[in-house]
């Protein structure tokens, strides 16, 4: 079949206890496993073993991002395809990289990001019974997003990485900011019929701009802002609206400096939909529709 959706994100954190406390108590994730230098977390409605891995390292930033594929055969398919395109691919057996992890292939994007495709991660169930389940668990803490949603990377040549994602991995472009010189300043791509599963913006190679959790509605963004303010978490933006993707969002930083987003809205997109283009002059509105000006801190700070 194909690549389904964003599966997991592995972050570097210089303080594992602090970061874990934040992701569990403020964001509201569930810890599923722990090693001396890694903590495995998932959102409450996710069935898979982990969607966020915190790895103790001296710096912050992104170690790798993982996408889920539908069938085990997809790993062979993409391994062969990437191989014939001259991309080095490393294969992991199930459980080899981490507890609960599935079979996976790992490779590098032209921007230097480590990307993985994974299949067969251990299914641990969401926090609800399979028979007569209530619509949500009680006793959740923090923002309690049901799942991870997308990831936003920085790359020196957005065009090149976008082309790689489309040609090698069958991602589809939904929106782009085109510079006056005709180059892509930023792009949004999807595999799951949403407004985006991955996005790219001009910046240093290998950088993480942010990764995002899904919430169900605008009210949940207000709750998330309340939670941030209560815990003294620095909000980068108010609850606001994107022009690109049409989503509503809230940005803030984890205690070691990685940017998080809570995201809702957007749209369904057919595979043959025509991409939306934003011109450089309208880039402010493309990013933050209400503010309408390019937020320089938002564009320059990344990990």
């Amino acid at each position, binding site marked *: *079949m*194909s690549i*389904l*959706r964003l599966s997991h994100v592995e972050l570097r954190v210089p303080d594992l206890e602090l970061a874990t406390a934040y992701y569990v108590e403020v964001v509201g994730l569930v810890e599923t496993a722990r090693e001396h230098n890694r903590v495995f977390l998932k959102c409450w*409605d996710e*069935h898979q073993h982990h969607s966020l891995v915190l790895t103790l390292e001296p710096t912050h930033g992104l170690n790798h991002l993982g996408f*889920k594929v*539908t069938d085990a*055969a*997809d790993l062979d*398919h993409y391994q062969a395809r990437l191989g014939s395109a001259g991309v080095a691919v490393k294969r992991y057996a199930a459980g080899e990289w981490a507890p609960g992890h599935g079979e996976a292939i790992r490779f590098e994007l032209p921007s230097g990001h480590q990307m993985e495709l994974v299949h067969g991660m251990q*299914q641990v*169930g969401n926090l609800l019974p*399979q*028979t*007569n*389940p*209530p*619509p*949500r668990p009680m006793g959740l803490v923090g923002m309690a997003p*049901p*799942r991870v949603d997308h990831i936003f990377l920085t790359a020196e040549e957005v065009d090149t990485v*976008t*082309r790689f994602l*489309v*040609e090698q991995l*069958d991602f*589809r*472009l939904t929106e*782009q900011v085109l510079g006056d010189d005709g180059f892509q300043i930023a*792009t949004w791509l999807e595999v*799951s*019929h949403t407004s985006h599963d991955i996005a790219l913006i001009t910046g240093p190679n290998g950088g993480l701009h942010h990764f995002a959790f*899904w919430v*169900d*509605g*605008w*009210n949940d963004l207000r709750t998330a802002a309340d939670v941030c303010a209560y815990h003294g978490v620095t909000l980068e933006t108010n609850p606001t*609206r*994107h*022009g690109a993707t*049409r989503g509503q969002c809230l940005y803030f930083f984890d205690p070691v400096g990685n940017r998080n987003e809570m995201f*809702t*809205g957007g*749209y*369904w997109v*057919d*595979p*043959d*939909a*025509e*991409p*939306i*283009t*934003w*011109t450089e002059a*309208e880039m402010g*509105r*493309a990013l933050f*529709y209400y503010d309408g000006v390019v937020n320089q801190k938002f564009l320059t700070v990344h990990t």
Partner: protein
Amino acid sequence: MTTPARDPLQRDEERHGVDYAEGTPSGTTREVLRDLVPGRTPLRPTRTPGGILRLAHVDITVTDLDVATAYYTEVMGMAVSGRDTDSVYLRCWDETDHHSLRLRYAPRVGFDLMAYKVQHEDDLDDLENKVARYGLPVQRVSRGESVGQGESIRFATPSGHVMELVHEVERVAATGRGRTNPDPFQAQGEPGPPSRIRPPRMDHLLVTAEEVGESTQFYMDVLGFRITEQLLDGNGHQLGTWLERSHSPHDLAVVHGANGGLHHFAYWLDDWDDVRDAADVLAYNGIQLDVGPTRHGITRGSTIYFFDPLGTRNEVFTGGYRPDPDFPTITWTEDNVGRAIFYYEGELNDRFMKVHT
């Protein structure tokens, strides 16, 4: 893009060199369309999944075309895409396909068909073959026979519902959004307290069938739907099933009832605030709510049910979840049917159980 001439007597194996009845094989070579927009066009054959994508349109009959059209435009906020002698075709503001609702004049209110969109042209051949092998007659509808769409196939499901599968649809401009620097809401209706419901798109429909189990098997085995939830009676028989293709809780649901019946069709709203706004609009226009605003146990969605002026049940729906294809099916038992359907009320009303079109 042109469709190659099709010889109905030629077997699929001869035409494609493969047996599509066993499912589109991995790595199938497909025609690459060079005229599509760069960046979305795969430059080589891909493994992009085919099959049914999503609900395309619902065709119902109405006893008063003017009243129905007035309701679906002025209250629901849909746009008219076209008319012919006996029908009006409508779409929601974020839809770029020609229509998602057809209203056809007839002496009685009823259900003509449900149409689902498939991803690739050759999915029509594939699914036609599978439906035929199941033993149901399949009709090819050629380009130009139906307003706003190309070739399609039609067949009656085991429960007597006419189902259509379509690939090519006429593109119309989204009423709300251009493709360059678009506003994030419907541009033609200025933002403000909505005086129409204005859903961005159609979401799903629920049909009634005497043999829910048989229908469900058909949708799953032949058409590739995946079951997310089921309601079982004390003997383990399916009283209702919720089926998806689009990674949502349901694109199609089947509940026990008369064969051929439509229980309701549903529009998507973005969140619970919009559900409240919809209730405001309905109340202002004197439209009786059937149930809600409330929450489903099944699908976890938030909802209101109401009737159009001729008697077809509508729903506005939001929420739910995002199931992967390996999603473990959720089961509801009959003793929990109240909460399964209406989680807050915990019980069903007779009208909801009995009234359909």
